[in-house]
């Protein structure tokens, strides 16, 4: 049996099915699927299936309920995932930009505020595939506890919001800052 | 059982029962013997002796029975009578 579980989303007709990334077909919107799942999709009982990096979003038709169809869909899904070759998926657009957008939102919002409350700051350096590089400065820089907290929280939020297995990397400040600036910062603290 | 035990030695000839696992050895659970009472088999599975689970034999009681096993982060003891119902594939000595 495939390890898989479902969690709720904002839309009551939609559930997020979480399973290991290597069990999923290519990312994007599903056009056709093998077996019973495909039949449900074709019959429009299932409105839409979207494959993301670490989960699938399955949306039911407006007048059906997960309560009735839950077991059936789960079984169909597990069977379908055993036959990855039988899936037809419209590839998803490159979402580096989307990831950068989500990160920027978080840094402008709760994560940034958290950093400031510790007397430091955090900024986005670059997004590279699933890696998000950030730089910590101020009181956060050099404090392992704050760095760890910020790192974990940011990573968790990014994963949740994007549905991808994002990794956050902190870029070390000292290697980028030339000696002069460092001396200056000693005086201007 | 439809899952392949991950990393287990795929030699069906090395399937033995848990009662034969000596203290200090480690094995992977494959399932329960076919002639086991289904309710007892179910209960053993519920306690952690399910397919793909790793089991360690820890020690035997001074009088020979029961034996303490470690499975899924718990230590529990089973009598020989029940240990004979669980099929395992022992791991090679390290």
């Amino acid at each position, binding site marked *: 049996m495939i*390890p898989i579980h479902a969690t709720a989303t904002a839309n*009551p007709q939609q559930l997020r099915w979480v399973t290991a990334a290597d069990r999923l077909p290519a990312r994007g919107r599903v056009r056709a699927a093998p077996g019973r799942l495909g039949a449900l999709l074709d019959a429009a009982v299932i409105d839409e299936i979207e494959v993301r990096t670490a989960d699938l979003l399955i949306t039911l038709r407006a007048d059906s309920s997960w309560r009735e169809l839950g077991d059936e869909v789960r079984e169909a899904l597990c069977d379908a995932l055993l036959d990855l070759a039988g899936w037809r998926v419209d590839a998803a657009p490159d979402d580096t930009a989307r990831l950068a957008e989500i990160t920027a939102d978080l840094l402008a919002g709760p994560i940034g505020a958290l950093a400031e409350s510790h007397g430091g700051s955090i900024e986005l350096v670059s997004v590279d595939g699933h890696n998000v590089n950030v730089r910590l400065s101020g009181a956060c820089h050099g404090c392992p506890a704050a760095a760890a907290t910020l790192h974990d929280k940011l990573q968790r939020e990014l994963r949740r919001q994007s549905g991808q297995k994002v990794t956050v990397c902190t870029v070390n400040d000292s290697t980028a800052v030339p000696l002069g600036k460092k001396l200056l910062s000693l005086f201007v603290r | 059982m439809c899952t392949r035990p991950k990393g287990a030695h795929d030699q069906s000839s090395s399937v033995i029962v848990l009662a034969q696992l000596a203290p200090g050895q480690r094995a992977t659970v494959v399932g329960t013997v076919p002639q086991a009472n289904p309710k007892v088999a179910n209960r053993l*599975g519920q306690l952690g002796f399910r397919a793909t689970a790793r089991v360690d034999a820890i020690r035997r*009681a001074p009088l020979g029975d*029961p034996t303490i096993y470690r499975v899924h*982060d718990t230590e*529990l003891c*089973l009598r020989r009578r029940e240990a004979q119902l669980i099929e395992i594939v022992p791991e090679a000595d390290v």
Partner: protein
Amino acid sequence: MTACHDVSAAPVAVAGIRRVALVGSPNAGKTSVFNHLTGLRAKTGNYPGVTVGRSVGTTKVDGVAIAVEDLPGTYSLDPISPDEQVVTDLLTGKYPDVDRPDALVLVADATTLRRSIMLVGQVLRLELPCLLALTMGDELTSRGGRIDVEALSTALGIPVAAVVAHRGSGIDGLRAQLASFERWQRPPILPPPGQEAIDAWGQSVLDAADYVAPQPDQRTRRIDKVLLHPLWGTVAFFVVMFCFFQVLFTIAAPLREGISDGLTWLGGPVAEHVGNPVIRGLLSQGIIGGVGTVLQFLPQIVLLFLLLALLENIGYMSRAAFLMDRIMAKTGLEGRAFVAMLSSFACAIPGIMATRTLPSSRDRIATIVSAPLMTCSARLPVYTLLVSLLVAPQMRWWGLSAQGATMFLLYLGGGTSSLIAALLVKSTILRGDLLPFTMELPPYRFPSPRVVLAAMWSAAKMFLRKAGTIILGTSLVLWALLNLPAREAQTRGLSSTDATAYVMNHSYAADLGRAVAPVFSPLGFDWRTDVALVGSLSAREVFVSTLGQVSAATHPENPREALATMTDDHGHRVFTAPTVIALMAYFMFALQCMSTIAVMRRETNSWRWPAFAFTYMFALAWVMAFVARSIAIGLGA
């Protein structure tokens, strides 16, 4: 697999108190959570019609009382024994006379989550509002494990509260949530049915929660190297059991005497102030004596439960049961029954109460009906008297004191017959159930004082309320039988010992003694012995004093002289050697103890088993006494 789709998912809507039940496996810290929520106000009893224990208490949230029920610990909702069937039936609303709970609090140990996630999946399928209380989180992190509680909550679809039970942190938050269970988050779909499917589901959920399992507890491993070592472990076991036993025997005994003395002292002023001798007797001996009989067991019970709770909560009890299981298995019981049997060597009453730890009700009943055969401390005064009548103090057998050797043989006889009885009962009328013997050996942990105290308190409370009333009642009845009619006219002018003897020999009990004399005469007992037997139904040691009073002995507490020369109506000596031997055999087997019967009634939740025990023990006692006597006569004693 329980098919629950026919039960309505709506909570029981009553205008009464709302009910939350705690579900979880044993050793998950459930009882600790229960005690924190309900304090010491919990009531313990049984579920209707069965021997399964029930604990219900209340907790107040914003002034609203909520009933909290601590369900028996289960590993699975697929029942394999009648006890477990009770829990499953209760949760699915199929248990007669008991309503289904309105909401459930799942209590799971964070360090064994990979196993208990299976139970979580099963419970979620019940479609009741659920909250997961995760205990031992601190232990999880200290042993190198990790979990993201929020992510777990999202993955499960139910609220999750982290609770550190022995510290009590998180309890207030948990309690606050109990009032609003209608608003608890519910999973969007139920976990799949079937063990394999739930296993896969559980794996996925734990992955999503970044669960890292803890490393094996190093401290436990080090301690177990000693305590479960074939040699040192066995030594340690005997030391622990010896201490356990000593506490019951030597610490409880002076406390018991203290209570007895205190009540005798109380009887003094009563005797002075009450004129009417019947009322005086009723008050001082009947009532105060009866209360004394009840209270005298308290030190033993409280101490026993203190020790049991300590050993259990530290984690040693399961190790002791592990060491003893092979031996106990030969009697059809299991390792955990050992403690009950051992306690019965001091007194069967705490021993019978200790059977609560056995998960199988058949094992519990078998232990309960055979434990009284163990030579308890009340038999000691009777044996001492009888041995002194039979064996001269200076006699020696192979260098050993003959009196000592006889006592030892009597003790041994009691012990072995108890184990044989258990074996017979378990192999015939209480033949084994499917329940496989499995026992978890939890890590060694510091016992929570709250849990230990709560265990002591609830045991004492239950004994006093349920058994105490029966014991007091029978004491009064027996007092009346032995001391009425008052016969004031006939006893005026007689010395007090002669007066007592006269009253007793013409009392209702005497009528009873004469009436049952034909039953006991083949054993060589005369009617006065029978009167003493009737009197000692309340407690075995009473046999000595009653016999003393009946025979008008100058020292009723030590009537050896009077009894040795006592003759029956035909002038023959009553206490000949065969008769004494018959009496010994009789007391080895007979259930001459109303208090034990009362506790049996309480623990088995019916009169059937105490009646059975009394009957079979009486029959056994009679037969063995007859056989012993015949052999003695045959050998020319």
